[in-house]
């Protein structure tokens, strides 16, 4: 079968490339990976006038064909037909920001030289007009020698015209591709400026929105205060907004569990479904709302252009511990999940800066820790008010985040003084114009995350929960014996227990730690499964919090929290670290130093709590 014609969408960063890609292909996109590198490959379909389908691929943004990052390398290699796992594109759509032609036409000129059939999308013409800049697409087209279509991707303006132009381009006969790259950037840049100047029809100076906003948001005093307030709002929202949907999901799971218990006869299959699958996966699914809210904020901060400003504000402080402001974005993303966070370090040019960021990213409190934290806090920390509007539970949660951040900064400092010694690299970033991201693009981003989360719940988490259920159910406990001690899992846990007993961990925790290596939230489902098996009441009607309260002393619970601030319990993070660092050396290093930190932190917490008589 002939592969579909491939059209690559290319352009400089902040040209609105992804919005244009979304507008052309709609929500049905495939996200994959280029083999050997962790650069995501976004592709979608377009149907031509005669019904022929075309594959569209969204290339990572690049400033030129001389790459300064792994993303830009992929872009170059795809365009030159040298990328493994990708065929040579049949045509190009180059996206340029109408209000930044001086810069974007440089890459555009370089791409046109390659000789692919090409269309240029003169994007964001509305924002240019708002800034008082009117351009002539005819002149740009004349100077470049390729068709130019004016678009406003976020409002779907010009998309039909662009679609038609792609249609025409693929219907006309093709000429060969040169693959000759012009590398004289300075010369290309000067030519770009000439064309950009020639294309201006009129320019009225207006006070630009972006500058007005920057005057406030980058203000030396107001800027950091606003950033801190935004971060506080974000974490507040993660907890406050999620309560109602969380309760819905919980009651749905309870209902399912009750129905299954009532329908199936007593026996192993029922136990597998109710105690294993429903209790285990259910315990994790209830955290979907919190994860969604966190990702929503991160996508919004990225989409509006604020995230780069945050990096600007934080650069000097990050520089102080041997990181760059660029690390702020990966580290902030790591609050959602360390995996995309670590992947986002690809934008850090300096190898040592990047490696340090990767190694400390797991210390950021990812959303998978939320189930663990929430459960323990709900069970052990009284829901009292400290001062108006601030509860003790919320304060403890905030404290755990702070400990994670402080741990990351100290670890970075230690790494830069020790194994990763050397001068740190630079910080060079474009501050794009502020814009309101189309909600559809945010929705597409969220949808992708939901899919990944549910896939994980359905595979890794379900799998480990079921295996744990089996190990924890066999052999069956006799009368007067506890299931969690007699079973195979119980015996394995007894082995782990000898190691973790000094830091206050009991048998149940030892049992939960092993499967939680797959993913942290499995600790919750593991505890749920174990107590569900141990319980004599039908259907596990008693809440997990209440069960814990009676079985764990307070110092143990606090030590358990401290453990999870540091412990590298996540297979996906370890796997992505291996991929990003091309070997086992750094992931192994990461696992060891984090386990040592976790053990020390849990121990200190336990011993202090016991000494204080808690």
């Amino acid at each position, binding site marked *: 079968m002939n592969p579909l014609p491939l059209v690559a969408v290319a352009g400089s960063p902040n040209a609105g490339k992804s919005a244009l890609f979304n507008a052309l292909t709609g929500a049905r996109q495939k996200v994959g990976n280029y083999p050997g590198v962790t650069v995501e490959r976004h592709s979608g379909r377009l149907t031509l006038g005669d019904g022929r389908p075309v594959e569209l691929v969204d290339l990572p943004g690049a*400033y030129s064909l001389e790459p300064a990052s792994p993303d830009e390398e992929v872009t170059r290699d795809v365009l030159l037909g040298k990328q493994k796992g990708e065929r040579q594109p049949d045509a190009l759509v180059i996206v340029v920001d109408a209000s930044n032609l001086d810069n974007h036409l440089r890459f555009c000129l370089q791409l046109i030289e390659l000789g692919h059939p090409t269309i240029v999308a003169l994007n964001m013409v509305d924002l240019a007009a708002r800034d008082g800049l009117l351009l002539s697409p005819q002149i740009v087209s004349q100077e470049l020698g390729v068709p130019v279509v004016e678009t406003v991707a976020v409002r779907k303006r010009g998309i039909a015209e662009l679609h038609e132009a792609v249609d025409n381009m693929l219907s006309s006969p093709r000429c060969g591709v040169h693959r000759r790259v012009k590398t004289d950037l300075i010369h290309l840049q000067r030519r770009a400026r000439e064309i950009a100047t020639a294309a201006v029809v009129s320019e009225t100076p207006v006070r630009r929105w972006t500058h007005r906003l*920057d005057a406030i948001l980058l203000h030396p005093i107001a*800027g950091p205060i606003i950033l801190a307030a935004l971060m506080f709002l974000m974490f507040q929202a993660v907890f406050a907004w999620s309560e109602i949907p969380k309760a819905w999901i919980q009651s749905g799971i309870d209902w399912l569990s009750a129905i299954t218990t009532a329908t199936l006869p007593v026996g192993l299959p029922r136990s597998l479904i109710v105690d294993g699958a429903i209790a285990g996966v259910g315990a994790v699914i209830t955290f979907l709302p919190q994860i969604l809210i966190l990702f929503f904020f991160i996508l919004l901060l990225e989409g509006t252009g604020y995230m780069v400003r945050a990096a600007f504000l934080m650069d000097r402080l990050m520089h102080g511990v041997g990181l760059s*402001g660029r690390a702020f974005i990966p580290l902030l993303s790591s609050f959602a999940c360390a995996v995309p966070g670590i992947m986002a370090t690809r934008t850090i040019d300096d190898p040592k800066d990047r490696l340090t960021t990767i190694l400390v990213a797991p210390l950021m409190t990812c959303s998978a820790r939320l189930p663990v934290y929430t459960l323990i806090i709900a069970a052990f920390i009284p829901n009292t008010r400290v001062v108006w509007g601030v509860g003790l539970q919320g304060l403890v949660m905030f404290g755990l985040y702070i400990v994670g951040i402080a741990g990351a900064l100290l670890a970075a400092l230690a790494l830069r003084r020790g194994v990763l010694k050397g001068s740190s690299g630079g910080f060079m970033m474009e501050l794009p114009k502020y814009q309101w991201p189309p909600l559809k693009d945010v929705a597409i981003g969220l949808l992708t995350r939901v899919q990944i989360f549910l896939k994980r719940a359905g595979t890794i988490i379900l799998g480990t929960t079921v295996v744990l259920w089996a190990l924890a159910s066999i052999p069956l406990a006799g009368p007067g014996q506890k299931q969690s001690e007699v079973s195979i899992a119980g015996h394995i846990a007894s082995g782990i227990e000898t190691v973790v007993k000094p830091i206050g961990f009991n048998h149940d925790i030892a049992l939960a730690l092993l499967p939680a290596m797959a993913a942290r939230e499995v600790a919750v489902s593991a505890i749920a499964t174990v107590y569900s098996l141990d319980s004599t009441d039908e259907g596990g009607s008693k809440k997990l919090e209440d069960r814990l309260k009676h079985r764990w002393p307070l110092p143990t619970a606090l030590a358990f929290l401290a453990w999870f601030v540091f412990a590298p319990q996540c297979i996906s993070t370890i796997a992505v670290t291996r991929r990003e660092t091309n070997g086992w050396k750094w992931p192994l290093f990461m696992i060891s130093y984090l386990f040592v930190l976790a053990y020390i932190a849990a121990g200190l917490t336990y011993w202090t709590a016991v000494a204080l008589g808690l």
Partner: protein
Amino acid sequence: MNAPFHPEPTSLDLLAMGTRARIATIDWAALDSGEARRLQHFGFDEGVTVEPLHLGPFGRDPIAIRVGRMTVAIRRKHAGAIRVTPLNK
């Protein structure tokens, strides 16, 4: 009597906020190849007009600079490699 405006060339990191200037020379040798390439990507070139806009809140670093039609942030030490001639307002 209006004295003709004869600004002294200075380096970009010493330029006051909001002062427009034209790039006279860039000491490419003071930058490593990756940094130099990024500056070129951002459009830094002799004859281009630049304007420092904002300073980082801690230690007055990094500097947000308008170059051509875009705004970029670079560290103070890199701005030091760029010599500029202030423009008459």
